[in-house]
């Protein structure tokens, strides 16, 4: 649990970091509660809530019936009246059962009521493919919520951000959705002790470069970084931006990078069409950064198909290190 790196920094897994954030919040604020399916003694489908029910009891770590619409709605009503609920969807795909409460209620209540109400609810959503769970348990639907004013939509890529973003989400008076990639839960990294806030809506340049800009979110950040490392050996210098938040989106960091490199590629796990890549591409095309472009913008997203079961098909359906590397090379050589 408290492993140290060679540099003496404390290391936690992504799921441990999320759990630590929840524990800190619950210790500091009696209005924070957790709700979700099998989050108590079972510890959650991905063991993120693990032993929290032992520490905080079943009144604050509430197993809900398999009722996503109702459960999310109870969280919204509780948030509206003074609690700070964290509602865990067992899989992000199941949020579709609760769209009414997320989109029609949580996102709009402050506006519909002219600023007289606040819904400080946090939805946690395990997302992404790579687990062999096929089409209804592997989707990346974060962009859907990017279309909804009133929501904030986050995608932490590292254990440090997973903790800091959850604490920021809890401190935020508006509804926040955090998409956690299932393949990242076991990933380890440095996580500071105690409470800290990762700013919402601020992207981070994870690797500086001069030849092209790769904007990526969640697990795609790691794939993009690995691809950038390989390209560096060929003398191609890629800048990798961790988007972190798709609503609000950090235009400033992205545009500054494009002005510098003149080439842009957006990598995301959602279906390519109408996705995060379309939004970022259009944002650049509508700005002065357009004048700095030396090549067309590239989007790398998921295949235009549901997530398949067969492991080779599943792998082929979403961007991998090799595909990112190849696309980046083509972009750098202006072969697009």
């Amino acid at each position, binding site marked *: 649990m408290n492993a140290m790196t060679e540099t003496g920094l404390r290391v936690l897994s992504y799921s441990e970091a999320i759990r630590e954030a929840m524990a800190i919040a619950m210790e500091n604020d009696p*209005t924070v*509660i957790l709700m979700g399916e099998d989050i108590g003694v079972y510890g959650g489908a991905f063991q993120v809530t693990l032993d929290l029910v032992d520490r905080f009891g079943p*009144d*604050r770590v*509430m197993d*809900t*019936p398999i*009722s996503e*619409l*109702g*459960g*999310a*709605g*109870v*969280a*919204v*009503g*509780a*948030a*509206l*009246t*003074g*609690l700070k*609920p964290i509602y865990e969807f067992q899989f992000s795909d199941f949020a579709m059962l609760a769209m*009414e*409460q997320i989109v*029609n*209620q949580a996102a709009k*209540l*402050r*506006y*519909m*009521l*002219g*600023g*007289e*109400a*606040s819904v400080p609810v946090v939805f946690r959503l395990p997302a992404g493919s790579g687990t062999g769970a096929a089409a209804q348990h592997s989707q990346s639907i974060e962009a859907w919520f990017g279309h909804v*004013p*009133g929501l*904030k939509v986050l995608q932490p890529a590292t254990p440090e951000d997973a903790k800091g973003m959850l604490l920021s989400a809890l401190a*935020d*008076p*508006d509804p926040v959705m955090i998409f956690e990639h299932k393949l990242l839960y076991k990933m380890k990294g440095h996580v500071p002790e105690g409470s800290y806030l990762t700013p919402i809506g601020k992207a981070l340049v994870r690797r500086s470069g001069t030849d092209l800009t790769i904007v990526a979110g969640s697990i795609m950040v790691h794939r993009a970084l690995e691809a950038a490392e390989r390209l560096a050996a060929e003398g191609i210098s890629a800048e990798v931006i961790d988007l972190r938040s798709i609503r609000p989106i950090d235009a400033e960091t992205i545009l500054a990078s494009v002005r510098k490199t003149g080439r842009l590629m957006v990598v995301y796990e959602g279906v390519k069409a109408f996705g995060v890549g379309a939004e970022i591409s259009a944002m650049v095309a509508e700005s002065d950064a357009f004048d700095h472009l030396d090549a067309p913008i590239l989007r790398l997203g998921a295949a235009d198909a549901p997530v398949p079961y067969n492991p080779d098909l599943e792998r082929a359906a979403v961007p991998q290190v090799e595909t990112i590397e190849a696309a980046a090379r083509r972009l750098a050589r202006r072969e697009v």
Partner: protein
Amino acid sequence: MTSDAPATDNRPFAIRTYAPAQLREALRRMYLIRRFEEGAEDSYMRGLIHGTMHLSIGQEASAMATCMELTDADKITSTHRGHGHCIAKGADVGRMFAEFFGKETGYCHGRGGSMHIADVRTGNLGANGIVGGGLPIAVGAALTAKRLGRDDVTVCFFGDGANNEGAFHEALNMASVWKLPVIFVCENNGYGMSTAVTRSTAVRHIADRASAYSMPGITVDGNDFSAVAEAVHAAIVRARAGDGPSLVENVTYRWRGHSKSDRNRYRTKEEIEEWMTRDPIARFRSELIAHGILDEAAADAVAAEAMAEVEAGIAFAKSSPAPAIGDVTRYVYAEN
């Protein structure tokens, strides 16, 4: 409430339970609801209100008797047919008219209109444009009360149409499993838009649904003030005692169409006229006079007071400023 009624008192529940001043105020608010909605309808015809609205004329006893014992700490969730609930819970009709007129002085600063009218300070968490939308939210509000150790209750108004939404079943189940202080009040006016309850609902009485969720369910004459007040009183006592939720079905009728687009093709003129002979306001007024709470002149004075309040409300709304066009995105998120 007065508790000095003799044991053998067989006067109607409201007469033997509430003080004369409370009864007079209840009559005044029922007139206020009627005159408010007539005023809103008239303003709509004159083009002062755009959009649509759903009038509850004919259902005033259900709204007022249900709210009779609620304090500002108690919450309600309302429906698209929610003007009566709002007034019964204590809203100011001037600010309501201002909202309908789309003015900055309205309860929602002109952002919500009739379908989202709310008054959080008096515990009204809002009308709702989505059938069944308020049900899980009400359960969440009740969860907050229980978690924070408060003894306030939440009344969840919904219509007969909502009883076939999944949210209804999920909400009732969770409220019962967690023994939450919520009173589900169904206003059964016979039709979900044009579809008769007999054609949409498998059970004879919507209150029969309660047995599936192990809670008391009762069907009462929703145009009989005392019958509603007595049923809701028992449910409030049960909720405040920590014994969990109840379902009360008020059978009533809307005199007007579903909304402004309704051509009344699904019901007969005779049916509407027959229900108009069961006017809940006239009935309550007669009861108060018969039991010596008021005389005819005093009742007329109450009605005149309501009329004057509505006229003043319309004048206030007319003279209020509209929201600034530049503020179109204000209230989407909390302001720092």
